């Protein structure tokens, strides 16, 4: 009996029991849809993270007192003991790192900024060196000029504002030359930076850049700075970080066996952390999926046994008409595989709907363009795995059907 004939018989049998067939494959449906949806969503998040984090510039790295990611309170307490990073450290790195391109420094705090009666809360106030907007990737202006060396040298009370400040204070009116109040300090607006949007709901445009000298005049010099550096090109990334590490360790007189008492961070660090987190999600998903597929397989096997029992007489008739063992075996295996693959297909459909809905919701929360694409490989794998489940689940019922004695089967009422 050719495969197409077996498939036709199987489809007819499934169609005759639509609801039962659907309920039977529920386990497989849930297993497949959860794995496909999770893969789609984490891939979407991965891409989103990569876009946002690596947009800082993949050549750039920073030397900071505290690491980006602190995983315990004990670690945090330990980090508190670290020495401040100074502007003189920056000068030392400039002198020693020939693999480096631009090297600058920044300090930051969060304050309220005012213009006339209008207040903008939680603004990131950054004191930066004049080259800051060029390190790693260039951050262009919509209007006005960037900070220049002279601004830093003379600690001029001028600033470049982010697009959120522009929106809040000036709207369509001219911002350049206006004076805003950072805390109580007067700052003249000299430029507006291009808009970057949000990352996990945090605006990237709610800031004021001041010359680092001006910042220190406002807030004092007793603060650790962050050195922002870049490698001259991607290939020199390792070398640049190594050279920097060597200078820093020498300046702090760290012995051979002592760990760094400063942190060198790149976008990669955050990406690595993110990826190890999503790996955890994957593991959980795979366990959940494996469990629901096993349960789904047992249910399919059970229903196939019922189906065989219901059709004992049909099997007898088919044997009387010349069906061989292998014909009957194939018929029920095909039915079991089709049943499970159908569950897999419905699961993919469910996953597509689910991840589309979730992408819309997440996109809304993060106010960003976010998509969770259901990949062809995930679809193929899901169909393959559910077919294998059907095949395995069908073996026992099908071989029971195939080995029925035709005389006994025909006597069955």
């Amino acid at each position, binding site marked *: *009996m050719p495969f197409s004939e077996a498939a036709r018989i199987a489809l007819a049998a499934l169609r005759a029991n639509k609801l039962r067939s659907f309920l039977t494959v529920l386990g497989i449906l849930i297993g497949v849809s959860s794995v496909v949806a999770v893969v789609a969503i984490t891939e979407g998040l991965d891409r989103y993270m990569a876009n946002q984090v690596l947009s800082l510039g993949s050549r750039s790295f920073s030397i900071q007192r505290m690491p980006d990611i602190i995983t315990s309170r004990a670690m945090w307490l330990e980090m508190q003991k670290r020495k401040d990073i100074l502007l003189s450290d920056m000068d030392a790195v400039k002198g020693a790192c020939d693999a480096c391109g631009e090297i600058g420094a920044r300090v930051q705090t969060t304050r309220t900024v005012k213009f006339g009666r209008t207040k903008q809360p939680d603004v990131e106030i950054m004191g930066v060196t004049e080259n800051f907007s060029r390190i790693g990737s260039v951050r262009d202006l919509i209007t006005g000029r960037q900070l220049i060396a002279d601004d830093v040298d003379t600690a001029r009370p001028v600033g470049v504002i982010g697009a959120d400040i522009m929106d809040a204070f000036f709207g369509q009116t001219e911002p350049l030359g206006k004076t805003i109040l950072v805390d109580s300090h007067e700052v003249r607006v000299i430029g507006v930076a291009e808009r970057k949007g949000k990352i996990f709901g945090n605006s990237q445009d709610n800031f004021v850049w001041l010359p680092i000298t001006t910042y220190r005049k406002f807030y004092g010099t007793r603060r650790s700075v962050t050195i922002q550096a870049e490698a001259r090109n991607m290939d020199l990334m390792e070398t640049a970080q190594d050279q920097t590490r060597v200078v820093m360790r020498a300046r702090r007189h760290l012995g051979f066996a002592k760990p760094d008492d400063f942190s060198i961070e790149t976008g990669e660090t955050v990406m690595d952390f993110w990826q190890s987190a999503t790996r955890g999600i994957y593991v959980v998903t795979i366990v959940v999926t494996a469990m629901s597929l096993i349960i789904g397989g047992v249910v399919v096997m059970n229903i196939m046994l019922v189906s065989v029992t219901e059709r004992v007489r049909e099997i007898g008739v088919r044997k*009387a008409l*010349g069906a061989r063992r292998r014909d009957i075996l194939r018929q029920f295996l095909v039915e079991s595989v089709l049943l499970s693959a159908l569950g897999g297909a419905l699961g993919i459909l469910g996953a597509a709907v689910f991840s589309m809905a979730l992408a819309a919701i997440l996109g809304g929360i993060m106010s960003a363009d976010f998509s969770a694409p259901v990949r062809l490989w995930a679809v193929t794998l899901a169909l393959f795995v559910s077919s294998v489940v059907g095949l395995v689940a069908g073996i026992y019922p099908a071989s029971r059907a195939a080995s029925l*004695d035709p*005389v006994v089967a025909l006597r069955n009422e």
Partner: protein
Amino acid sequence: MSVAPVPPSTTAQTDGALIRAEDLWRTYVMGAEEIHALRGVSFTIAPNEYVAVMGPSGSGKSTLMNLIGCLDTPSRGRYVLRGKVVSEMNDDELAAIRNREIGFVFQTFNLLPRATALHNVELPLVYAGIPKEERLAQARRALEMVDLADRMSHKPNELSGGQRQRVAVARALVMGPAILLADEPTGNLDTVTGEEIMGLFERLHAGGNTIILVTHEKDIADHAHRTIHIRDGKIESDEERRR
């Protein structure tokens, strides 16, 4: 996938007999008890004979038909069909014989309820591995032969008892088998429809078919040219009837 040819090693000497049964026993083991449904049955049947098998209920008629139809194998004895020793064949070879040499008609019709008349008749051709087009043509021809050309796409529950049995006969004949076996084919039919089926059998016999038919009705048995009576698993009498 086509039907496996029967290997020549199982061939015995032929002497014109289509069926040769030699001391057939069939014993069912039920726990500690042994039931001898057949106790040493021997006979030969020539091509184009029309034989009725009669006997009381439980005498072993169906058991004998199952052996002749290769649905079952004897516990003891030898069964030779067209010179081939069937009692030594394996499952696949038996399936091939059932498919090509035997046409079965049952008391309860045994049609697949969800399939149309045409699809039911098509079934033996499916297992013979015949391509779709040819299959449909042959199945149509068989249904026309039993005067059901206008009922091909009906399902069994849309047909009368007599029509169902005619579908079953068409299905039994579609492969052009040597032997038509009918186990109480009129048992579930009224007298008139029963006679209709018997008329169909006469026609088939006239056309060259060998027919073996189980019945306990004298009127039905009278259509046959030879009657074998069995009782308690043994042949009681075996006589030709001249007409």
